[in-house]
Each structure stands twice: as structure tokens, then as C-alpha cells.
């Protein structure tokens, strides 16, 4: 980023802060319970990495387009795969679990019922696999010729399987789809060596969440959330210094081999100008790591300062995932975290299970004081992981026999339809099929799910993970290792970054050779 661009981001932040100071909209939000900080209305991202043009995709335009198109899903699907089609299909998905909001489970069940109703002669075998097990399980199954016919993978995983020749190539036109129905960043995530190996089902970005009440008690302005990562550090320190060690500021996550970790560290790394490879550049080549550049080291240093020097984040950050963060947030032990829009619904669900009056009162206070805002910016940019999921069909070899192509097509078609790419991600994401934004269901969703506008405001700042088969190892293993090495003081910050860069470069060079 040029100096002029950098100044632009910073001045934009200042403008926003003035706006926040004068509007005082959060006070109204507080009266309504959990709220959205007014800063989310600002737009200063370019969407260069994802093709999400902020002029087209912002809370106002999304609200305006919702409900403008009626979709007859059954007719569209039967035009794709006739109703009388017989066959069999196995489908693995990290679907709703016990921690999911009831609406997610309900819609998932409804999806299965819809599929069975649309194609009654297709025998469907569904496996709802835990998110943390799906990757390993599918890796082993595919290697042994026992993969399912179709799967829905998080955005990070697919390329590895495509590179190993385990996924079928997809032609969008076979599904009545065209490239302009998706954000470019979404299609990029299913593309390997210029071929498409899947269809995006949903895309989202996370947001920054803070507890207004804790801010107030710590003497911070609850209407002025941190706008930069440096301010996050300051706020985090102030909270812990003021309220004692039982209340930590920022909910850091640095567990090894856990998908939650990169989703929460990469926005910071990119904001400072670092990157795992060069994925934050406008034309990435994915050839060399930039994680140990001065910018990357500065990002890691900030994590170190918060964990080691300030002790203003949970000590358990090294073993925590977002699941543990939820509990810490709900019990007022942390004041800030990065998460999905679904966090509000998830915490409400947890609230409903509490029976102890004291715990209930405290949790209710937390939910009432939840505020969503933009993920803070760094010296170089504001950034967030462009996340989501994709649907893939395995090859016959990976499946261990011929994949029923018609049945697989039916599943792929329905998963990526405007209706179900929306409903299957009701509380936590957006439809990848952009027609989904124009449906009446989107209108209903915007009216019933709070904070969606914050995460849509973050979309232009989205940066996709590197689209290389090494991404999974880099994000799930090498980067968490780097964090652990630095935070546990096994290595210095510079050594940890150098070690990670060395591992990433070795990994990339193995493919190159």
C-alpha cells in the first residue's frame, strides 16, 4: 500500500471516530439490547482481493435488493436433474451441532427433507461430521478410496484435494450457473491451475465484537471501540489493569492445529502488511513467504505484547478455540473477540440453557451489551479473512467406485441454489450464489438476524487464504506453531517468524521442485 493510501485509511478512521462521537448511536443500540457500533456504516475497503465492490455490496444496497426476485427452486432443480432420477449419493458435511442455534439445525433437517422430496428415488446417505474431524477423516477416506460422492468443505481445504487429483472438475454451465453469479474471490477458492473443482456455497467475513458494559466499567468510552490494533492493545491492557486479572481484554486464540487460529490472526498480520505468502498483494504469486518481514514481525510482536508483556489476554489462549472464547465472553472474562454474526444467536442459545439466576443475569447482561463493529485496521490496511465453504464432487478413484453423476449433480445444484445457499447458512454466512441476496428469504433473514450488516460491511476488506494446496498446512499448522513458539517464549518473536517463513518456503519449494 502506498503512503497516500495509508493516510487515506487512517484519515478515514479518524473521520469515523468523529462520526461516532457525534452520533452516539450506540446509546440507542443499548436500549435495544445488543447493538452495532455506528462505525460499521463506514466503507473504506476496496474489495480488490475478493471482487466484492463496496459500492454494490454494502448494508444499504443489500437491504434494497432483498426480496426483489422470486425463485422457484423445485422447478430450477428439476430442470437440472429430473424428479424421477434414481440413484444413490453419500454426502459429508460439517453441519449443525449441539452448539449451533436451533434454527440452524431446523433448516439443516429441512434441507435433507427437501432433497428427499425433490428426488425421492435418490438414496441419500448424510454424514454430519464434526468440523474438527472432517478434514482428517476425508483425507484418509479419499486416500483409501472411501470418500463420499459429494462434500461441503470450508474454503481453505479444497485445493489440496484438487491438487491430488481427488476432485472432479466442474463446469458451471452444467449447473445453469455463470461466473458472474459469484464473487470472484469465491470462485478463486475453487480454482486450481485454471480449472474449477467445486462450487462456492457461502461466503462470509467475521466482525469485531466487544462488551459495552466492560468498556464502561474500565473507564473506556463504550461508544468508541478500538479502530486500530494498537488501540485494541491499549484497551485490552486498560481493561485488565482496571478490572483485575479475572477480566481480560482481548480474546486471543492461538491453539495449534485449529482452524479458529488463522481466522483470528491473519486479519492482524495483513493489517500490518505481512502475509503468509503474498496473498494480500493485488497479484499474488504465492512463491515466497512474507511472514518474517518487519511488518509481519510487528504483527506477531503485538500478539506477544498482549500475551506476555501486558498479560491482558486469556492465559489459556494457547489451548483455546472460539468455543472456549464464547464461554469466557459470556462470563465476562473477556471483553473483545473476533467472530461470526452467528455468535449473537449462539450466545442467546447458551443463555437459554442457564438455570442459575446469578449466571443467567450476568449472561443476559453480556448479550445485552454485545456490540458488533469492524475489525480494527493496522498501519497498512483493514483486513479480514474471506471465508466460506464450497461443494465438491470426488473422483471415482477417491470414492472407491463410480460416483453417481446425476445424484451428485442434484446435490451440488441444490446446495448452491439461491434458496439453499442462503438457508443453509442462515445465521453465519451469506449465499455464494448472489441471486440469493435478491430472494424474499434474504429479506426475512435481514429482518430476523441481527448484525448481518456488520459482516457484509467487512466483505470488501476480505482477503482469501492463499489458493495453494499447502494452505491447509500453513494455516492450521505452521502459523499456530509460530504463535505458540513466540507466546510461550520458546523462541524470540523474530526467530518464530523466521522459523515459520523457513517452513513455508520449504513447503512451497517442494512443490516447485
Amino acid at each position: 500500500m502506498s503512503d497516500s493510501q495509508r493516510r487515506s485509511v487512517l484519515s478515514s478512521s479518524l473521520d469515523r471516530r468523529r462520526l461516532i462521537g457525534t452520533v452516539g448511536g450506540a446509546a440507542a443500540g443499548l436500549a435495544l439490547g445488543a447493538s452495532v457500533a455506528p462505525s460499521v456504516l463506514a466503507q473504506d475497503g476496496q474489495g480488490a482481493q475478493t471482487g466484492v465492490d463496496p459500492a454494490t455490496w454494502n448494508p444499504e444496497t443489500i437491504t434494497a435488493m432483498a426480496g426483489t426476485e422470486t425463485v422457484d427452486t423445485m422447478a430450477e432443480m428439476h430442470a437440472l436433474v429430473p424428479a424421477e432420477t434414481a440413484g444413490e449419493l453419500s454426502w459429508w458435511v460439517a453441519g449443525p451441532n449441539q452448539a449451533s442455534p436451533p434454527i440452524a439445525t431446523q433448516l439443516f433437517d429441512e434441507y435433507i427433507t427437501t432433497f428427499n422430496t425433490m428426488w425421492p428415488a435418490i438414496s441419500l446417505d448424510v454424514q454430519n461430521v464434526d468440523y474438527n474431524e472432517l478434514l482428517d477423516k476425508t483425507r484418509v477416506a479419499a486416500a483409501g478410496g472411501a470418500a463420499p460422492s459429494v462434500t461441503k468443505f470450508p474454503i481453505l481445504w479444497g485445493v489440496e484435494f484438487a491438487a491430488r487429483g481427488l476432485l472432479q472438475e466442474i463446469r458451471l454451465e452444467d449447473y445453469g450457473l455463470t461466473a458472474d453469479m459469484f464473487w470472484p474471490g469465491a470462485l478463486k477458492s475453487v480454482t486450481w491451475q485454471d480449472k474449477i473443482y467445486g462450487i462456492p456455497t457461502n461466503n462470509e467475513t467475521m466482525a469485531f465484537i466487544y462488551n459495552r458494559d466492560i468498556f464502561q466499567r474500565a473507564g473506556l468510552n463504550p461508544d468508541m471501540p478500538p479502530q486500530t490494533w494498537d488501540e485494541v492493545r491499549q484497551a485490552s491492557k486498560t481493561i485488565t489493569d482496571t478490572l483485575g486479572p479475572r477480566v481480560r481484554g482481548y480474546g486471543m486464540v492461538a491453539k495449534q492445529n485449529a482452524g479458529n487460529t488463522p481466522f483470528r490472526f491473519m486479519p492482524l498480520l495483513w493489517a500490518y502488511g505481512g502475509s503468509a505468502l503474498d496473498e494480500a498483494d493485488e497479484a499474488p504469486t504465492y512463491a515466497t513467504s512474507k511472514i518474517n518481514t518487519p511488518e509481519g514481525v510487528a504483527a506477531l510482536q503485538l500478539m506477544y505484547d498482549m500475551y506476555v508483556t501486558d498479560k491482558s489476554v486469556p492465559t489459556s489462549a494457547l489451548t483455546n478455540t472460539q468455543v472456549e472464547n464464547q464461554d469466557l465472553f459470556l462470563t465476562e472474562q473477556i471483553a473483545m473477540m473476533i467472530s461470526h454474526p452467528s455468535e449473537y444467536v449462539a450466545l442467546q442459545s447458551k443463555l437459554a440453557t442457564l438455570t442459575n439466576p446469578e449466571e443467567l443475569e450476568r449472561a443476559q447482561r453480556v448479550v445485552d451489551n454485545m456490540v458488533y463493529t469492524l475489525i480494527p485496521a493496522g498501519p497498512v490496511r483493514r483486513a479480514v479473512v474471506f471465508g466460506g465453504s464450497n461443494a465438491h464432487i470426488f473422483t471415482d478413484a477417491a470414492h472407491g467406485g463410480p460416483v453417481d453423476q446425476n445424484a451428485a449433480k442434484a446435490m451440488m445444484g441444490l446446495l448452491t441454489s439461491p434458496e439453499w445457499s442462503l438457508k443453509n447458512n442462515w445465521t453465519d454466512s451469506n449465499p455464494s450464489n448472489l441471486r440469493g441476496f435478491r430472494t424474499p428469504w434474504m429479506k426475512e433473514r435481514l429482518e430476523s438476524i441481527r448484525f448481518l450488516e456488520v459482516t457484509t460491511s467487512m466483505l470488501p476488506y476480505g482477503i482469501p487464504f492463499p489458493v495453494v494446496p499447502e494452505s491447509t498446512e500453513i494455516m492450521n499448522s505452521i502459523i499456530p506453531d509460530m504463535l505458540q513458539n513466540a507466546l510461550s517464549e520458546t523462541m524470540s518473536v523474530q526467530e518464530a517468524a523466521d522459523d515459520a517463513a523457513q517452513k513455508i518456503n520449504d513447503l512451497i519449494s517442494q512443490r516447485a521442485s
Partner: protein
Amino acid sequence: MATQAPTLPAGRSPNRREVPGVLSRMRRHAADYLYVAPAIIVMLVVIGYPLVYTVYRSFFFTDARDPSWTWTGISNYTGILSDNLFWQVTRNTFVWTVGSTVLAIVLGFAAAMVLHREFVGRGLLRGILLIPWVISAVAAAYIWKWMLHSDYGLISNQLLAWGWISDALVVLDDRSRVMSALVVVNVWKEFPFVMIMVMAGLQTVPQPLLRAARVDGASSWNQFRHITLPHLKGVLLITTLLLAVTNLNSFTLPFLMTGGGPANASQLWITEIYKISFGAGLRYGEASAYSVILFLFMAIIGYFYVRALTGGGPKNEEAG
């Protein structure tokens, strides 16, 4: 029916008992081989084939991006042995295995000695002490993980509430304490097994011998040292070896409680092999080499285990 006397080979004494050849013995035991054949076949399929396949694959480079294998000779082995992480993991595994085994033996032995005496509530206490052993390792791992959690762990919070500590007790997130904590949890889980084995062994100690020793004025210590302990030697040896093998193969507790962290401070051979195979880049070749190294260690322990079982004497093989 006329039969012909067997012809003796030149130079052999007719008085010496003839040892039949291998083929002859196999023919004689044909039915025995038939009976064990199903088990042998199953073992060849589920143990022999994977073993050979693992050794074979340990000489190849494999990774997540390419389904083909590249022959790399012993480079996987040299790579592992020259990596500092291997030696750190080996040290962790040693601490885990020896620490868990020795402490479980000591605690289990002590518990067995106490429970061998008659007292009111002995049955109840025995039942309670068995609980750690019978509950699922997964459940135990999660219970202990929450109890030892650095920020909202039951143990830390209780100690803080009592005023015994002023800062939260950080165990699982501290690389200098994490192994000790894991060993303690593992000992808690395993000592009832030792207790049962030793209690069974104590039943075999001849009571007349103990009575005679008492009559002769032997002290309790001398009775224990010269009568009880020698009778338990076999049980203790087998139990120790079984525990050592179990601990070398431990996966559930360390994996679920820490995932090998922080910064690999609780990474063991097994969890590292899992990480290399499935958690990182599908480097099956490197993981196979790691597994072969572990197998060699296990084979050495297995050798001593078999020797302990058979008393270490010559084989009581039937000759004819």
C-alpha cells in the same frame, strides 16, 4: 502289512534318539497349523501387511499435493533424527512413559497393600478407586482439561477462593508444567490397573509361609521384603511392561488435553506421528519412518515382555 525299518544315515548311532526334520514335524502337527491358521491369516492381514507396507513407505517422500511417491532412501530417517523436534518429542515421550509407569506402579502398589487389609468400607473404597480406570479416556481428558483450565479451571479457582494462591494456576498453558500435569492425570487414570493386578498377586502369597515367618519372629517389613515382594515380582514385572507399552502408545489423553502444545512441550511420538500424517501435510512417508522408529523401541520392550512371560529360560519345545 509289511513295513520296512528306517535306514539310518551313515555315522549315526542307532541308540541316539532321532530328531525329525522340519517338514516331518510340520506334517505331524498339520492339524495344529490348521487350527491356528485363521488367527495367523488375520494377523498377517491386519499386522503383517501394514507393518511391511509402513517400512516400505518410509523410504518415500509423500505430500499433500501430489499423489505420487518419490523414492528418497533413508532421508526420512535422517531428516527425523537430525530434527531438534524429534529429540524434544523423544524427551517428552520418555518423561511421559517412565513418569507415568513408575508413579502408577508406586501408587497402585501402595493402594493394593492398603486394600489387602481388612477394614470397614474396604469394598466401597476399592470400588471408588476403580472409577478412574473404568471411565472413558475421552471423558477423563475433557474433565481434566476443564479442571485445569488456566482461566476458569475448577482447581485454580478453588485455590484462589481459599486464598492458597494469589495468581491463577497455569498448568496446561505453561510449557514447563504441562508434562507434569499430563503425567499426574495419566497416573490417576492408570494406577487402579496396577492396584488390581497387585491385589490379584497378593492372593497368591502363601499364607502358611507368612504365618511361619510370624512364628519365627519376622518383622512386618521382613515378611514383606522376603516373602510378599518376591511373590509379586512376576506380577510387577508384567504390569510394568504392559503399562510401559500402553504409555508409549498413549494418544487420547495428551491429544485431547493439549494437542501437543504449548509449542510442542507435550508432543509425544504418537501425537507427532498423527500430526505429520493427518494434521499437517499428509506426509505419510515421514510418518511411516517415525512409526518404524517407534516400532523398534516397542519391539525391544516386547522382547523383554516375552522373556518375562516365559521366565527367560530355554524353550520347552517338543522334540518328537
